[in-house]
Structure formats: structure tokens, C-alpha cells
């Protein structure tokens, strides 16, 4: 070895890794190899973002849960040190309470928790089942191949949100068209912006109608808060828009990615399709939430008071990024983490985050995925990919990870 002859190698500090990191070309459903490497070697380390800032990257499950549950971190994008998600898609808007801290966050969040209670969500299951069955009827009646993203994965959550918010049936087509444009791969930023304004204007008007004439739906609940003077009409609209945005593309991408993952694991797909055990669909949803990832840019926070964790000192004013996909592959918590095993107990995954900001809609998302995964492959048992696996394009640069399209046939 050269250094034994010439003396010690001069100390060159490890270059600070850049974040986000690329995935391995052949493994688009696995976390980037560099993330796995850091989890093993340097579970709490600084990374460099596109804007040149250097927040901490937290890769282990236990550290992520501890920090996401710590009141000394802030979710407010204006807090000093908050790691910006700005990238090719531009900056992120500041949307209602998900980017606020307690107590204001808790005050606003509690206004919309009721419809997501487990029993209320369960009561929506027959409506969701009908939505899914109708869409599958439509697929089977039409020609194949089709793009599963366009014809199924995006419409399911859009129609479920209509049901939840109380969008009248006659307006579903308008709502569907505009929400599709808001997330469409070929839409220009101007078209997306215009569609978002159309939807916001529509929701604002509908809240106005519910203020005048309340019903038993979520928008009427929000409208009642306006009437009571707890929030203004603008905040109410922003809240409704948040529920739409948070529940639409996320669920859609889980439907498409879940289908792709199952097609790549035919033994697991067969198990899901043929099992008589109703518990298997439930555990399959948890395992797919663990195994897959859509929030690939991670949960981000700013440190507001110094925190000692894992032998490191995170200082006030520094940023932290918790990438749930690598926590969900932490071998300390999930043995043999890279194996997709629908029978494993994966309930402790952090796909919905952790702490006071944990996804508000997760009971609804779980139920929707249970209906979808429990129905689609049984009703179309010969479902298969209609393109070469290498031609599936992944949304590496989007805020929410997924596939641009998923051509399928049967």
C-alpha cells in the first residue's frame, strides 16, 4: 500500500453527497443505493441540495421517528434552515396547515379530522367499491391496451374525493377534467396553473353554497367553520384544495406502482388474487406502502432548538430531511427488507410520515388501496404489462414519485 511507504494519506474530507440521489437503473422500485450506503455507514449526515444548502439527511427508522415526533422541529417552510424542495418543477406552494406548526396547525387540522375517523371511512367503502367496479367495467368494455394511470389510477382517487367533499354528480366531469390537467405529464405549467385556479374557484363557490345550505359532507363541515368565524372563506378553500392535492396523485401513484410491483412479483400477485383470507389484502396494502415510495423527496423540517441525536448535534437553524423509503427498508425493523412479502407484518412503516403531521387522510388512502388491490387483479386476472419493462418511465424529477404511464392489457 502506498501510504505505508509515503506516510499517511492526507486527510481529505468525504465530499458532501448531493440529494436527491439517483436510483439504480434496473431497480426503480428500490431506494437509491447511495441512501442504503449512508444508512449503514453514516445514518446522520449532511447532504447538499440543488440550492447549495446543506441540511442533515436522516436515514434510520428510529432516528426518523424520533425527529418527526420532536416538537423542536418545524414544518414551516419559512423557518430558518427549512430545506427547500425547489427543483425542476419550481418551488412548492405553502398550502394550509401542513406547513404550519402547533398550535395553529392543530387548530386547523382538527377542523377536518372527523371525516377521516376509521368508522366514517369504513362507511364510504361501498361507494369506493362502486367507483372501482364502474371504472373496471369501463376498462373491460373498451379496447386494450390502455394506460392504467390515465384510465384507472387517477380517476379512482379523484372520484373518491368528489364523494368525500360532496361534489355533486353533475360536476364530476368538470372536476375530473381539471384535476387530471393539474397533474398531467403533458400539461404546461400554465395549463396546470389554470386548472388549479378553476378547481379552487369551483371549491370556493361550492363552499359558498354549503354555507347557505349545509349538507352532511366534508365541505359543509368546513363551511360551518366559516359561519362560526373560525376561519375565513379563503382559508376554507385552501383547506379543501389541500385535501384534494394530498389525496389525488399520491393515491394514484400507489395504485400504478403497486400494480407494477405485483406484475414484477407474479408469486405475490397470485397470492393476493387467489387467497381466501380477507386479512391478506389488508397486510398487502401495508407491505406495498412499506416497499414502495412516492414521497421520495422526504419529509423536511427545520430545527428550532438544538437536538442531540445519534451522537450528532443538530443545531437550531439547520434543516433535516427524513426519507421514509429508506427507513422502510431499515433491516433493524424489517428483516430482509428488500423482499416484497405480502404476508409480513409491515404496519409500523412510515410511508405516511410520523408525528403530528402524519398524513391526515391515511385511513381513507388505506381503504381505497384495499378496495383497489382487492378488486382489480381478481376482476382482470390476466392483467399484464403491454410494453417492455425497460420502457416504463419513472417520475424521477416530480414531487411525487410514480410512473408517467402504465400500458396494460389482458
Amino acid at each position, binding site marked *: 500500500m502506498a501510504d505505508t511507504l509515503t506516510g499517511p494519506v492526507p486527510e481529505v474530507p468525504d465530499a458532501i453527497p448531493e440529494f436527491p440521489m439517483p436510483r439504480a437503473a434496473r431497480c426503480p422500485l428500490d431506494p437509491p443505493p447511495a441512501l442504503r450506503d449512508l444508512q449503514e455507514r453514516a445514518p446522520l449526515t449532511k447532504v447538499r441540495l440543488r440550492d447549495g444548502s446543506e441540511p442533515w439527511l436522516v436515514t434510520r427508522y428510529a432516528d426518523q421517528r424520533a425527529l*418527526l*415526533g420532536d416538537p423542536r422541529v418545524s414544518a414551516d417552510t419559512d423557518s430558518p434552515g427549512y430545506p427547500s424542495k425547489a427543483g425542476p418543477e419550481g418551488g412548492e406552494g405553502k398550502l394550509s396547515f401542513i406547513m404550519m406548526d402547533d398550535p395553529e396547525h*392543530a387548530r386547523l*387540522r*382538527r377542523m377536518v*379530522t*372527523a371525516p*377521516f*375517523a*376509521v*368508522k*366514517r*371511512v369504513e362507511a364510504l367503502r361501498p361507494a369506493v367499491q362502486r367507483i372501482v367496479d364502474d371504472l373496471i367495467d369501463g376498462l373491460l368494455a373498451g379496447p386494450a391496451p390502455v394506460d392504467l394511470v390515465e384510465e384507472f389510477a387517477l380517476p379512482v382517487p379523484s372520484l373518491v374525493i368528489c364523494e368525500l367533499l360532496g361534489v355533486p354528480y353533475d360536476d364530476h366531469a368538470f372536476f375530473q377534467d381539471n384535476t387530471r390537467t393539474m397533474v398531467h405529464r403533458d400539461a404546461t405549467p400554465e395549463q396546470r396553473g389554470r386548472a388549479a385556479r378553476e378547481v379552487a374557484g369551483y371549491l370556493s363557490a361550492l363552499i359558498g353554497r354549503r354555507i347557505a345550505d349545509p349538507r352532511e359532507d366534508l365541505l359543509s363541515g368546513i363551511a360551518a367553520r366559516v359561519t362560526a368565524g373560525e376561519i375565513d372563506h379563503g382559508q376554507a378553500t385552501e383547506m379543501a384544495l389541500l385535501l384534494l392535492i394530498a389525496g389525488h396523485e399520491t393515491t394514484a401513484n400507489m395504485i400504478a406502482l403497486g400494480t407494477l410491483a405485483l406484475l414484477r412479483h407474479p408469486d405475490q400477485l397470485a397470492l393476493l388474487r387467489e387467497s381466501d383470507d380477507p386479512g391478506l389484502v389488508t397486510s398487502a396494502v401495508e407491505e406495498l406502502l412499506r416497499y414502495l415510495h412516492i414521497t421520495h423527496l422526504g419529509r423536511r423540517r427545520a430545527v428550532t432548538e438544538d437536538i442531540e441525536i445519534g451522537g450528532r448535534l443538530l443545531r437550531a437553524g439547520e434543516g433535516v430531511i427524513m426519507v421514509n423509503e429508506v427507513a422502510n427498508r431499515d433491516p433493524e425493523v424489517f428483516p430482509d427488507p428488500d423482499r416484497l412479502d405480502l404476508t409480513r407484518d409491515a*404496519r*409500523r412503516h412510515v410511508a*405516511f*410520515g*410520523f*408525528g*403530528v403531521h*402524519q398524513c*391526515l387522510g*391515511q*385511513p381513507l388512502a388505506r381503504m381505497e388501496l384495499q378496495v383497489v388491490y382487492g378488486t382489480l387483479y381478481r376482476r382482470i386476472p390476466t392483467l399484464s404489462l403491454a410494453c417492455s419493462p425497460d420502457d416504463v418511465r419513472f417520475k424521477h424529477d416530480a414531487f411525487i414519485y410514480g410512473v408517467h404511464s402504465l400500458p396494460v392489457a389482458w
Partner: protein
Amino acid sequence: MTRPMSGPTVELESDKCVASGQCVVAAMQVFDQDDDGIAILLDERPAPALLDDVREAVAVCPAAAIRLVER
């Protein structure tokens, strides 16, 4: 179901609750939700057969609002 006279006690701090409902999914016989989704404790001294479910509820509660005090 017979209620044990002694054994672990469940403690719920409802002011911490963020209405995720995960405790209800994990241990439906021990937890419920009020009209706003906030957790309610149905049984503070559950039967031994339910304790694994309660431990799961403790583990998945995002707000660390549930404790199982083993005595």
C-alpha cells in the same frame, strides 16, 4: 370477557391525539374515536389476550399519546 383485577394499564393523553385512528385499527376493543376523530379509551385494563394489540397501538400512534404501564 373477564376483566383482570390487576395487570398493565393503558394511558391515553387525548390532548396529544392527532386523530390518526391507528389505535382503533390496531385494537378496536380498547380504543374508539369521538365525533372529531380524537381517540377514546374504552378499556383501561384490557384482558391479556388484547395486550399485543395494545402494544401495536402504542407503536403506531404517531403522536406518542398512548402508553401501556406494566405493573
